[in-house]
């Protein structure tokens, strides 16, 4: 994968964002091209299973896969985008980082919390950045995060949980006076809908409603490589077109995945 590849392709992001569903668009209608679908020839023995048990996108060097919290912490530190990585003009939010040893969980009342990491999760880190308002455009808020699990199954469960969240809570409270609504999401395992960059991925789109009560587009992109889950969120202000925000998130996630690959391949 080229380092500047946008991981998520526009045509089906648009479908999720528009809420016009769900099953992959592929490039069919949009490009007129025949979609490259990786239904293997032996596919006939089972129902179409696009499950993430399919061929992995990436085989890490087993010696480099984090086994301890410290290894995990080193990895997330080096992978997760800091303000400068996002581009010119991005600065840290306050706080700039999540509390070490915690991760984000959506509780039974649909409120986001950061409890301690459970067993099976070695490390987690989120960094919060923003592009301040200026030049007639509103601010853009971004989050980058990574979680390292001790098993692939644990990491895959994290993506299942991510997909479960909008089913459980179509409206989610991030802070006391901020919430996310109108969520649509779609999980896409490696090989389905031209997904060729991660073992599994989830795209979520909705609106972010802040203090002022005005809604802004919100995107949450998640991808798994082996035991590592990387994610970015983008919340756009006035004057930033949807495509720009998608491109921003997609590029950032793609580059974080490149960092994961490089670390686990020992380059």
């Amino acid at each position, binding site marked *: 994968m080229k380092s500047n590849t946008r991981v998520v392709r526009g045509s089906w992001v648009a*479908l999720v964002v528009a809420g*016009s*569903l*769900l*099953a*992959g*668009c*592929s490039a*069919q*209608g*949009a490009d*007129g*091209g*025949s*979609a490259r*679908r990786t*239904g293997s*020839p*032996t*596919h*006939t*023995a*089972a*129902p*179409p*299973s*696009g*499950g*993430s*048990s399919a061929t992995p996108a990436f085989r890490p060097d087993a010696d480099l896969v984090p086994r301890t919290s410290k290894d995990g912490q080193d990895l997330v530190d080096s992978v997760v985008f800091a303000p400068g990585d996002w581009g010119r003009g991005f600065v840290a939010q306050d706080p700039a980082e999540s509390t070490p040893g915690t991760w984000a969980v959506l509780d039974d009342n649909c409120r986001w919390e950061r409890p301690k990491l459970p067993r099976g999760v070695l490390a987690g880190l989120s960094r919060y950045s923003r592009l301040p308002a200026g030049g007639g455009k509103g601010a853009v808020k971004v989050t980058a995060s990574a979680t390292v699990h001790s098993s*692939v*199954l644990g990491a*895959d*469960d994290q*993506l*299942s*949980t991510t*997909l*479960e969240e*909008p*089913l*459980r809570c*179509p409206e989610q409270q991030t802070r006391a006076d901020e919430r996310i609504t109108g969520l*649509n*999401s*779609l*999980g*896409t*395992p490696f090989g*389905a809908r031209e997904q060729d960059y991660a073992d599994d991925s989830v795209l979520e789109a909705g609106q972010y409603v802040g203090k002022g009560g005005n809604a802004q587009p919100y995107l949450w992109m998640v991808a798994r490589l082996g035991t590592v889950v990387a994610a970015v969120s983008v919340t756009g202000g006035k004057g930033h077109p949807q495509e720009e925000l998608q491109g921003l998130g997609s590029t950032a996630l793609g580059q974080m995945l490149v960092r994961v690959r490089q670390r686990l391949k020992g380059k």
Partner: protein
Amino acid sequence: MEPLRTSDPSRLASHRLLGRLGAGGMGVVYLARSAGGALVALKVIQAEYAEDAGFRERFRREAETARRMTSPWVASLVDADPEAAAPWLATVFVPGPSLGEAVAAHGSLPVRSVRVLGARLAQALSDLHAVGLVHRDVKPGNVLLALDGPRLIDFGVARDLQDTALTSTGVVVGTPGFLAPEQAQGGREVGPAGDVFSLGCVLAHAATGRPPFGTGSLDALLYRTVHDTPDLEGVPQELAEVVRGCLEKDPRQRPTAEALSQALADTEPADPREILRAVRPSARQDQEPADEDWLPEPLIRLIAERSAAGLGLPAVDDTEVASESADTTAADDADAQPSGRAVGRRRLLVLTGGAVTVAAGGGLAAWAALSGDGKGNGSTAAPTAKGPVHTIGLHADLSGDHRAVGRAQERGLRLAVDEFNSRGDRPFTLAVRTVDDGGVPARAPAVAKRLVTDPSVLAVIGPTTDDTALASLATYDTAALPLIAVSPGATVLGVTGSRSFLHARVTDTILPFYLRAYLHGTAKSHTIGIVDDRAADAYGWEISSALSRMLHQDRQPVVPKVVSALRRDFGPTLDALLEGGADSVVFAGYHDRAALLARELTHRHFAGARAAAQGVLDTRFLSAAGEAADGWVVVAPVMDASVAPEAKAFAAAYRRRFDAEPQRYAVEAYDVARLIVQTLSSPSAGRVTRQNLATALRGASYKGITKNFAFDKKTGSLVIDGRGVYLWKVDGGRFRYQGAAPFQVST
């Protein structure tokens, strides 16, 4: 065929016996005509076997399994009565010579014929093995040749286990020289790998004219089978390695039948059945690739002679003929054209160069006899055609995982076309052309291309699955060829902007309305649990996300769980559902993993309702879940035409035509075919072009058996009116039809 003996009955069950095809240790095989007029091979078991309770039980079980299995290359089971005093079973009659006779008469087959033969017989074995049957006696005498391919006969059912093994007295009843070493050594029951070994012998024999372990005394043959390397001299190099793999002494070293079929099919030419099924303008015949016939010319002639001999056989009883000819199909052409009567019972086989054209002037039963499997029936051929010939294409999975659905759609289409062609006043004649993508998305665009490039094809029904539909949508759209999907449910099919697509069923996101109505209404559930299986990707997600959204909007409690495709244990999922207070479960996934959940629910004594959509409406769910399947309810855009009152006339016509109960999705395809016919016949289609027809279809409205058809003119999606979705409930190990599914909870 030998005539009947005085000791033979003239009728058995509803069959009229016509002659003896053979006799063996187990009983006699007759040629017979079923009540519906089809020719069948009727095997009647000797009373002494019937007295053995173990044998009868195995017979019953295997007949039940065989009934569920369909394979294009196996002479399929038509009917059986394991409970009769003399148990019997009827399979489709294939008039062709056996492979053994063909090789004896004309020598070894050319390499391409062997390859096609091997790929299809391997497919036949794979289909048998998939349902747990083992043939146990694959040999040249059990392979019959038809114009469109081989047929494996005399499969597993009704053969004594000892029949082909070395018995305690050292007698081999089967066919030495084609037995696997493990069979030749006796004692153990032979498994699927034994069939593969035997097939290897059959292929070597077909390629060289000699069995690979020679001929001679029984002992020498058995010894060589167990100890010697096979003699493959003369087997063409490109086949030798595959055949050698089949002949490994260690069963575990042999390929599976499926793998063998793949290996041989890689370079197999297109299904030669196409040429029989399609009616083409004669001007185009010279463009046919010369290799579509799979056998050398002398063998085609031999098969043709055999088939023609079948014509002299007595027809069904006169009274039955009279009652049938009123509403059967192609036969009526003869009535409409007095001169046609003369050829009425005679079939015309025109052999032109490499290509074979079959002109069926006779009745359906005769035509079915010729094609051998009772399903490769073309519509009336060009010589009796009236007006222009328009072709309706069927793009289906006819050989892969969803072949049961694809084949049912083929039959529904053929029935509608035959009925139309039987009208004396028809303004045009319809033909059918089928293409098979095997359910493999990567193959779908290429097979779509074959229909697209046939200018007589004006509309296409299919494909069978979401993935194949998505993969071929662009090909049809580019050609503006109307594509009408009967079984795929993906919503995305309607939002890619295709101008020629029509969705003849509600999408999967609509099914949750029916699921909710059933669970809140009939099942009195308060809190619905949803299990989204990620192994089912977008299909599961459409259902789970639409259902949970609907319940949230109605402020109804819901407990959704998403399960990783890597998990096979549904225990933790169930814990979470119960903890959330779910008193019913919707499974958003396919039949195989539904069975895992079903077993877990039963294991935990879960008392609530279990429901799913059409992905679970598959007999493999029943076999995998066993008793745990009981009580599951499936909501699906599929009617059971064999019992639904609205489909009574259809079912009767279907039974007459195919001598079988209507299978799922047959009546749905029949409806769509009639929609096409109506639209083609109406002036609104204008000058008949694909594009005009696409527009006319999207503007059409048609009251079908299964639903009302009307479409969104912009997207081609079905206008939802609450009809067209049905309930099925598992009861006693079967899916039982419950009629139309309610759309809303009745208040």
